[in-house]
C-alpha cells in the first residue's frame, strides 16, 4: 500500500493510524532480527503518536498526506531524547536534545516515527555491513548487501516496515540502497532540504532525502521536508518551484521532453542485466513521447576524483576529535572507515581548496548540458547488490573495488549538487529476460538514475512518475507481502 492509499484509507476510517503502526511494528518484530534494518525501535512513542494522529483526524484536524503514516529515519538524524549513533561506537550513547530539521518537519506533517535505521558506520561506505549494530541484509537475497550508507532505510522500505524513510546521500548513499533494494530514492538539490541536526560526513556534499516505495510517495515526503531553514547556512532561500507539491496532480506527461542519454562514461563497464533493464526504461520513455538525445557529458572520472578529495578531507575534519585522541578511541571505528579517515588526514589543504575550485569549474561545464536536454538518464549503479563481504566486483572482465564501482555513476552528482532520483527498472535474470551473459545472481533489483538541473526536483519526479505509470518497475519484494 502506498502513502496515498494509506492516507485515503485513514480518512475513510477503513483503517486507523494505530492499526497501521501496529502492523508496521509487527513486521519489524518479524524481520528485524534477520535484516538488521533498525538500530532503535521506538514502539511506545510511535503508538502514542499514532493515537494522537487518529484523535486529530477524528476532530477534523488534518495535517496532510503523511498524517498518521509510519516512517523512520536513518540513525544520523538527531531525535530529541532518542539515541542517535550514526552507526558508530563513538556515538553509542549520544542522546540529542533537539530534533533534526527533517524530523521536526515530518512530525509536524503528522508522520509517526517508528525509530532509527541502521546504516554504514558514520555514513562512510556503501555496504551497511555495520560492525557494531550488525550487517543490514538485502531483502531480495539476505546474502547480499542492501547498499549504503542508508542501507537500513532501503531495506525497511522494501519490506514494508515503514511507508517511507529518511536517508542521507554524500556520494550515492540514498540512490545506491534504493537501487539495490528495488525502491525509490531521491537526492534533492544541495540546499533544498535542511541539513540541520544531521550528523555530518562531508559538509559540502551531504544531501538529505527520502526513500519510498513509489515516486509519488517520495514526492509527498519531499513536500514535507523541503524549504529554507536559517539554521543551515547552505540551505537555499530559493522558493519552492511548485509550492507545497513537487508532483502536482495526475498529469505526468513527458511528451516532448528531451532526455539526455550519455554517450560516454555512464554506460561503460556495466553488468549486462543493468544495461538491458536501463535500455528498456529508455525505450519506455520514447514510447511515452520523450525525445532521447545522445549527449557527451564532461569528464565524470575527473569529477569523481574531485569529489573524493573533498569528501576525504571533510570527513576526516569531522572525525578529527576522535582521531587525535589516542589509539583506544580510533580503534572504535571499523577498519574500513578508519582507513578512509586516515587517508583524509594525508590530503593537503591545498588539494582540498583546489578540488573546490575544480568543482565550480566542472559545475559550469556540466550546466551547459541543460541547453540541449532536460535531464540525463543513466544506470544508478553498474552492478547489482554484491554479496555481503565482497570487496571486488567483476565488470567487463575487470575486477573493481566494490565501493569505487558502486559509487562510480552517482558520486559526481553530489559534487554538482544536482537533484537525482533512482527508480527500480528491472531484476537481474528476471524482467530483463535472464541473459546468459549476466554477472549477477538472479532476482536482484536494478536502478535507473534520472539527473536534473538544480532545483528541478519537480521535473525529475514527473519523469520518474511517468515511467512508473508506463510500467517501468519491479514486483514488490516478497518479504514485504
Amino acid at each position, binding site marked *: 500500500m502506498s502513502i496515498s492509499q494509506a492516507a485515503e484509507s485513514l480518512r475513510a476510517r477503513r483503517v486507523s493510524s494505530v492499526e497501521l503502526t501496529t502492523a508496521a511494528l509487527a513486521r519489524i518484530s518479524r524481520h528485524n532480527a534477520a535484516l538488521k534494518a533498525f538500530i532503535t525501535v521506538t514502539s511506545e512513542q510511535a503508538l502514542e503518536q499514532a493515537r494522537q494522529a487518529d484523535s486529530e483526524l477524528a476532530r477534523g484536524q488534518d495535517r496532510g498526506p503523511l498524517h498518521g503514516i509510519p516512517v523512520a529515519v536513518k540513525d544520523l538524524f538527531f531525535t530529541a531524547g532518542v539515541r542517535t549513533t550514526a552507526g558508530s561506537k563513538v556515538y553509542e550513547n549520544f542522546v540529542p536534545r533537539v530534533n533534526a530539521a527533517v524530523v521536526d518537519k515530518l512530525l509536524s506533517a503528522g508522520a509517526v516515527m517508528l525509530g532509527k535505521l541502521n546504516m554504514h558506520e558514520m555514513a562512510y561506505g556503501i555496504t551497511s555491513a555495520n560492525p557494531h549494530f550488525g550487517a543490514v541484509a538485502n531483502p531480495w537475497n539476505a546474502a547480499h548487501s542492501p547498499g549504503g550508507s542508508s542501507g537500513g532505510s532501503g531495506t525497511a522500505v522494501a519490506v514494508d516496515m515503514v511507508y517511507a524513510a529518511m536517508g542521507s546521500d554524500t556520494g550515492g548513499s540514498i540512490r545506491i540502497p534504493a537501487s539495490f533494494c528495488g525502491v525509490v530514492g531521491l537526492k534533492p538539490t544541495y540546499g533544498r532540504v535542511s541539513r540541520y*541536526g544531521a550528523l555530518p560526513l562531508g559538509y559540502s556534499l551531504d544531501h538529505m532525502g527520502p526513500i519510498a516505495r513509489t515516486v509519488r510517495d517520495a514526492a509527498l515526503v519531499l513536500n514535507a521536508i523541503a524549504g529554507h531553514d536559517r539554521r543551515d547556512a547552505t540551505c537555499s532561500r530559493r522558493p519552492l518551484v511548485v509550492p507545497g507539491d513537487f508532483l502536482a496532480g495526475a498529469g505526468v506527461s513527458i511528451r516532448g521532453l528531451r532526455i539526455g542519454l550519455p554517450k560516454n562514461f555512464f554506460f561503460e563497464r556495466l553488468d549486462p542485466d543493468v544495461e538491458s533493464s536501463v535500455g528498456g526504461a529508455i525505450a519506455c520513455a520514447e514510447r511515452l513521447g520523450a525525445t532521447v538525445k545522445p549527449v557527451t557529458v564532461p569528464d565524470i572520472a575527473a569529477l569523481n576524483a574531485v569529489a573524493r578529495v573533498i569528501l576525504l578531507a571533510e570527513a576526516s575534519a569531522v572525525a578529527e576529535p576522535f582521531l587525535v585522541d589516542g589509539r583506544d578511541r580510533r580503534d572504535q571505528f571499523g577498519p574500513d572507515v578508519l582507513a578512509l579517515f586516515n587517508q583524509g588526514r594525508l590530503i593537503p589543504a591545498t588539494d582540498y581548496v583546489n578540488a573546490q575550485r575544480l568543482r565550480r569549474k566542472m559545475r559550469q561545464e556540466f550546466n551547459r548540458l541543460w541547453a540541449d536536454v532536460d535531464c540525463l538518464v543513466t544506470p544508478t549503479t553498474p552492478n547489482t547488490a554484491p554479496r555481503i563481504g565482497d570487496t571486488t566486483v567483476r565488470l567487463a572482465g575487470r575486477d573493481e573495488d566494490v565501493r569505487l564501482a558502486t559509487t562510480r555513476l552517482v558520486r559526481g552528482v553530489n559534487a554538482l549538487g544536482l537533484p537525482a532520483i533512482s527508480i527500480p527498472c528491472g531484476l537481474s535474470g528476471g524482467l530483463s529476460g535472464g541473459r546468459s551473459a549476466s554477472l549477477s545472481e538472479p532476482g536482484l533489483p536494478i536502478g535507473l538514475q534520472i539527473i536534473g538541473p538544480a532545483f528541478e526536483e519537480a521535473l525529475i519526479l514527473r519523469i520518474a512518475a511517468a515511467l512508473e505509470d508506463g510500467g517501468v518497475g519491479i514486483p514488490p519484494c516478497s518479504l514485504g507481502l
Partner: protein
Amino acid sequence: MKDWRAIAQANGLDLSAPELDRLAPPLDALEEAFRPLVRDLTPAMEPSLTFSVDEDAVSVEEDACNGEEDAQ
C-alpha cells in the same frame, strides 16, 4: 608517487606500518587522477565554497544540543 609514510610522519600522525600499507594504494590512484586536473586551474577560478558574511545560521550545539558530552 608521494611518500605517504614521510608525509604522515611530518604531520605527526600516529599511523602504524600496516595502516600506511593499506592506505597508500588508494591514495596513489587518487593522486594519479587528481594531480593533472590542478594544472588547468587559473588564479581567477575561486573555490566553490566561499565565506558568506551575512549568513545567519546557528550551530546545532548552540541551539540546545548539549548531548555531545554523552558521546564517548
